[in-house]
């Protein structure tokens, strides 16, 4: 059991544990915080895969801004305890087995697929084969320039949409 394996299992257990806590939590704020924990664990896994910039962007943007937005909304709406009403019969009898089938089916298929047998390229620590930000930005601004500009317009549209909806709510 070498160090990379131990690190992977620790972070994977944290991620899966936090995801299960998201399902089982009674208050939405606990779900939000477990989702933040999932994101931070995933950022650590990205580091192990050599994607330093993406890991930092995940923490700064996803865990540090998007989830703060979720937490704000939960606090503002005072989202109380999840109601424990009865599940519909369909959900209980067909939903749970289907969900378990989806989970294990996907996992089994991933584990035995051809790409799954590939070992991470470049033996040794991820830092030896880490992606430099310079390469990433070169590709972003040369090959993917059009999606980049389109995404910036999309963000502008999202801001305008959120503003319009917020204004409508206060009328």
């Amino acid at each position, binding site marked *: 059991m*070498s160090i*990379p*394996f131990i690190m992977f299992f620790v972070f*994977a257990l944290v*991620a*899966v544990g936090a*995801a*299960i806590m*998201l*399902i089982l939590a009674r208050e*939405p704020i606990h*779900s*939000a915080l477990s*989702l933040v924990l*999932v994101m931070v664990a995933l950022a650590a*896994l990205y580091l192990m*895969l050599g994607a330093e*910039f*993406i890991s930092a962007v*995940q923490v700064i943007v*996803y865990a540090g801004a998007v*989830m703060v937005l*979720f937490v704000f*909304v939960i606090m*503002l*709406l005072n*989202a109380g305890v*999840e109601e424990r*009403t009865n599940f519909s019969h369909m*959900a209980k009898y067909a939903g749970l087995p289907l*969900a378990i089938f*989806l*989970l*294990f089916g*996907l996992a089994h*298929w*991933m*584990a*035995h*697929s051809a790409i*799954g*047998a*590939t*070992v*991470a390229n*470049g*033996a*040794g*620590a991820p830092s030896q084969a880490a992606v430099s930000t310079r390469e*990433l930005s070169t*590709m*972003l601004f040369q*090959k*993917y320039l059009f999606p980049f500009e389109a995404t910036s317009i999309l*963000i502008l*549209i*999202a801001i305008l*949409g*959120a503003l319009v909806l*917020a204004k409508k709510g206060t009328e």
Partner: protein
Amino acid sequence: MNVVPISYYLVLSAILFGLGVVAFVFKRNIITIFMSIELMLNAVNLAFVAFARAHNQLDGLIFVFFVIVIAAAEAAVGLAIVITIAHNRRSLNVENVDLLKF
């Protein structure tokens, strides 16, 4: 030194995606359902990064970048809609929002 095979990351991504689907189907608070969508997107991001490492190409990382950005935009607009619905219906239970026209 042994390196973790890519299939481990893919299995983890599949498990997280499945858990996201379970949360999406079984929870009834709108905001929690929204968060399960974010969980699914995160699982997909992990798969993208794992594949980028497997093929030693950067395109996967660029995809992750765009997914994160679009998830942020979607969260902003979605939460604005959620706030509007909460003000109108006075409840965050998704079973109460079942009419197309109020």
